[in-house]
């Protein structure tokens, strides 16, 4: 039977494959090639070897954006997951109104990054105005502003995944631990947490990649202000491409480095998830 299907390649696969080739595969290969070239449009590209990469790594803006992004990612991943896990624990105890609370906590996740950025610009500037400053006054304000925004957006999403994980823990396990005299904390430590480990892995990596790749929120909330000190990697790449003439090649080299970091993170996740699946 697969033989009959096989002849239908042009119907089933070709349209999607063609779009995939044009929108992803070709631009991806061109992107790698162009990262070794000097160019302003694609046609005038001239090979310069690894010079773009050297320039990228000696570019202060890039290194500062990288460091900012790493710090932001670490703080966001920890705070989002702690808060989401605690909320999930609360919302799986049969408290009245659980569904309503879940609905509210998840809502910000559906709002797009640009809109989120401007909402929080208003709120944070309103609070900071009481102290006579604004978001763009000090890079620390922008940093914590982005962390708060990211928490507001992602906590509900991660909470949903944790709730699904906690509800899958067999009731018998909890009861058996209880009968053996385990306290609430002990049950959390030795029963709940190990059993929801798969959800924890998923949430850690979802928050990790989403924080690392953040663009829209960064653009709307601070746009790098003051003087580029709150620029994250994705925004720095964008600025290098479209803000500086003659730097397109460096922008593309930065993008390749960015891709490699994201790929390493994703690959680590894949390996960890696979290993866990084998164990269980």
């Amino acid at each position, binding site marked *: 039977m697969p033989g*009959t299907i096989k002849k239908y390649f042009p119907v089933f696969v070709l349209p999607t494959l063609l779009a995939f080739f*044009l929108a*992803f595969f070709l631009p991806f290969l*061109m992107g790698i090639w162009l990262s070794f070239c000097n160019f302003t449009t*694609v046609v005038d590209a001239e090979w310069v070897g690894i010079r773009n990469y050297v320039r990228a790594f000696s570019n202060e803006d890039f290194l500062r954006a990288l460091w900012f992004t790493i710090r932001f990612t670490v703080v966001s991943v920890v705070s989002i997951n702690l808060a989401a896990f605690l909320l999930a624990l609360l919302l799986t*105890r049969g408290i009245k109104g659980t569904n309503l609370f879940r609905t509210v906590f998840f809502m910000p996740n559906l*709002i*797009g990054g640009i809109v989120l950025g401007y909402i929080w610009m*208003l709120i944070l500037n309103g609070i900071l105005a009481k102290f006579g400053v604004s978001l763009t006054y000090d890079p620390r304000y922008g940093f914590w502003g982005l962390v708060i925004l990211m928490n507001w957006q992602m906590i509900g999403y991660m909470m949903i995944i944790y709730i699904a994980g906690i509800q899958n823990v067999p009731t018998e396990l909890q009861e058996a631990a209880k009968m053996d005299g385990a306290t609430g904390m002990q049950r959390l430590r030795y029963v709940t947490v190990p059993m929801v480990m798969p959800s924890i892995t998923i949430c850690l990596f979802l928050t990790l990649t989403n924080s690392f790749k953040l663009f829209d929120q960064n653009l709307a909330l601070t746009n790098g202000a003051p003087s580029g000190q709150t620029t994250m990697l994705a925004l720095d790449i964008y600025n290098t491409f479209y803000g500086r003439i003659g730097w397109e090649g460096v922008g593309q080299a930065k993008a390749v480095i960015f891709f490699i970091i994201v790929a390493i993170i994703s690959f680590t996740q894949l390996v960890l998830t696979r290993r866990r699946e084998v164990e269980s």
Partner: protein
Amino acid sequence: MKEKKTTGATNRIGVAETGIHPLWQSVWIVILALLSALFLFPVIVVVYNSFKGRLYISDAPFRLPDVTTFAGLENYWSGIEKTGIVSAFGWSSFITVCSVAVILLGTSMTAWYLVRVKNVWTEALYYLFVFSMIVPFQMVMFTMSKVANVLYLDNPLGIIVIYLGFGSGLSVFMFAGFIKSIPLAMEEAAMIDGAGPIQTFFRVIFPILKPTAVTVAILNAMWIWNDYLLPYLVIGSNYRTLPIAIQYLKGGYGSIDMGAMMAMLVLAIIPIVIFYLSCQKYIIRGVAAGAVKG
């Protein structure tokens, strides 16, 4: 399910640690209600600020509108005029609905073929689709917009092709995961009865795919509706989508008209809230199911 857990525990051990003692119950409800208020607060502030005069917003955003600051719908009219948000809403809807429909159809067919026809090529193609999921947009943004430009795909119709191509990784992956669990017997029965692959796919397979299709549709719709950079680079500002229209208010180094901004934020949020409240069940389930991809 959570009900079962708590009642089961109470019967044996008593109420102390289960969290449903009436006193604790009310304490937690109060805490959660406060947290909910904190979550809704930013949106509420934006809503009432949209009715204040644009000069009264930045300096005291938490003050409610009063006789002097109330501006009626003035911000809405000026915002609509400045951003063209009405047509942006139309373009966003058109692009999102068409792209999601094309993605659903195209990737489900591709996934079925790749799962059922097993050889080196389909295997390699499958991994190529999976690989594309981990590539960040910045990696291809410049070259993709050039390709789109050269091939006349830089318009609301052409961008559907771009979305199909760039969004196919995740969708093929999710459909393929589900198709692998469908027993072959049903398809074989249909084919023995004389149905060709096309009929078999649409009569037998496609209806079974519905739960996965809902998840794929929701994930893609959320992405495309809120996407800013891709449409901005591919179509530019000739056909503004919603996020582009909102970002447009910021233009250059000038200050933002906060009144128009507040009003446009409200208009951008309303359809999302309606969509969310009307298919909440599917959205939450879909998002939880889609999380597996990581």
